[in-house]
């Protein structure tokens, strides 16, 4: 495997940047790979647009910009127009089915996960919808090992939230049979 580009678009407060950090940490520190994570966000810390990008590679990452994402994760309707056109042909599009409705068929595979409603009903906290998506994504793509992701969660989220995040991630794994 060469270079995998992942782009995550959503709104501030959804854990968009955290998702990027988790993927990068798992790849770089625990999976023996190289990773670069970049981000941008608008002026409002909650509710504005947020974007995180991750490149995972077997070799040193030269160009650090995500240009044509192999994997595009959309967590808000607002992000569709901004990022959908960037996805690589035959790429994987993961969406939070509760929040993203306006995605038409295209030259990509759609992974549709009702992450927010699962997080709300089963975890009592919509804030971990991103972890559910990550779980499903990892199970589907085998991009990174489950162990590495779990280690990344344990070392990256606040102590009090580790269990909640791990549970959400594991719930995501279960979605893909």
């Amino acid at each position, binding site marked *: 495997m060469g270079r995998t580009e992942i782009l995550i678009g959503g709104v501030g407060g959804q854990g968009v940047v955290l998702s*990027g*950090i988790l993927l*990068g*940490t798992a790849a*770089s*520190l625990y999976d023996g790979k*190289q*990773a*670069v*994570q*970049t*981000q*941008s*966000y*608008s*002026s409002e810390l909650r509710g504005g647009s947020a974007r995180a990008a991750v490149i995972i590679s077997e070799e040193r*990452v*030269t*160009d*650090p*910009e995500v*240009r044509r994402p192999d994997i595009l994760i959309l967590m808000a309707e607002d992000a569709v127009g901004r990022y959908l056109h960037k996805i690589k042909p035959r790429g994987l599009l993961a969406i939070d089915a509760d929040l993203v409705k306006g995605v038409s068929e295209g030259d990509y595979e759609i992974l549709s996960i009702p992450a927010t409603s699962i997080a709300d009903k089963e975890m009592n906290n919509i804030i971990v919808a991103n972890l559910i998506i990550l779980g499903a994504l990892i199970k589907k793509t085998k991009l990174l090992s489950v162990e590495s992701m779990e280690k990344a969660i344990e070392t990256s989220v606040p102590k009090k939230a580790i269990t909640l995040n791990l549970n959400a991630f594991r719930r995501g794994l279960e979605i893909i049979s």
Partner: protein
Amino acid sequence: MGEKRVRTGRYFMMGNVACAEGALAAGCEFAAGYPITPATEIANHLAEKLPQVGGAFFQMEDEISSIAAVIGASWAGKKAMTVTSGPGISLMLENIGFAIGVETPCVIVNVQRGAPTTGMPTIGIQGDMVQAKHGSHGDYEIIALCPSSPQEMFDHTVIAFNYAEKYRTPVFLLSDAFVGHMREEVVIPEAEKIETVCRNIPEPGTDPLKMKGFLDEDVAPMPIFGKGFKAHVTSSCHDEYGKRNLIDISALDKFVRRLSNKILKHKEEITLVERDYEDAEIVLVSYGGVSRAAAAAASQARKRGIPVGTLRLITVWPFPGEEIEKMARRAKQVIVLENNLGQVYPYIKAEAAHFAEVSFLPPRLVGEIQDPEDILRKIEEVSK
């Protein structure tokens, strides 16, 4: 002490945090700044960590007082830094000139953001490159380093402190929001493997009347405060003893030349570049985050059989003209890449144009570093 300052280990770390860790490892004791995106993570991290090692970060009333306090702390004998972005640098410029004039070691981190004016705060561009060299009034030389990764945010911050202390001068770290907010593997070595430099100070008990504390091209020992040196430190034109002279033009000439020569004389030691242009006919010249796209494009071009090399400027100021000339003598085509509309390009062209064809490839979107595909197209265009 060293262990507490150096967080040895392997991390997936943000560039800005790596910068703060680098400052701690280099021995920074005092930091002052004013909140500004995209530099705040450095300030936040320093505010948390510096007190743990006996230092402190101070949030000042503005950027003017931030750099002033940093200069004051440096004269009090402390290793000191400030962190900001373009708008903050614009406010600091007068006092940066002051720091140069009275030869004050300090580190100034500019995490560049979308500009001009308030621009776009979270988008990184290389928009303040020439400001660092020419922003303050008058002729002067300054040192500026351009990191391209979180690892270099750490490494270059250490180098910046070492250069500042060694040459008694402000040193710029010209990062940008892209690199500052980038996360990547950062390896922090053990404390004893990190070289740190401290400024020379005069022998205790030196007669203040005989002390030459200024304007030495080989860097005068710094008569820091509180040691009985009775230093008169004025940014007005002065002589080697610090004595003000506002009347003789020859004194001004000496003042200007010696300050500049202090840097230029040591340019070879200061200049850091990354060369990869052996047998290349086309050389991509760039710095900072852009150099990574250049490296990607060069590698792809070579796979296609086009002899493309790269030259990456780590030290952008003092301008490494000799390095550019050396490269241009061997190349046929030079392509300059920057994430701006061509700020360092004229300097590169001036050195290279006599030996090679020089062209500039601006980014398709200012704020997004060049797509290696675009660079490849440009390479094919010039190789025809």
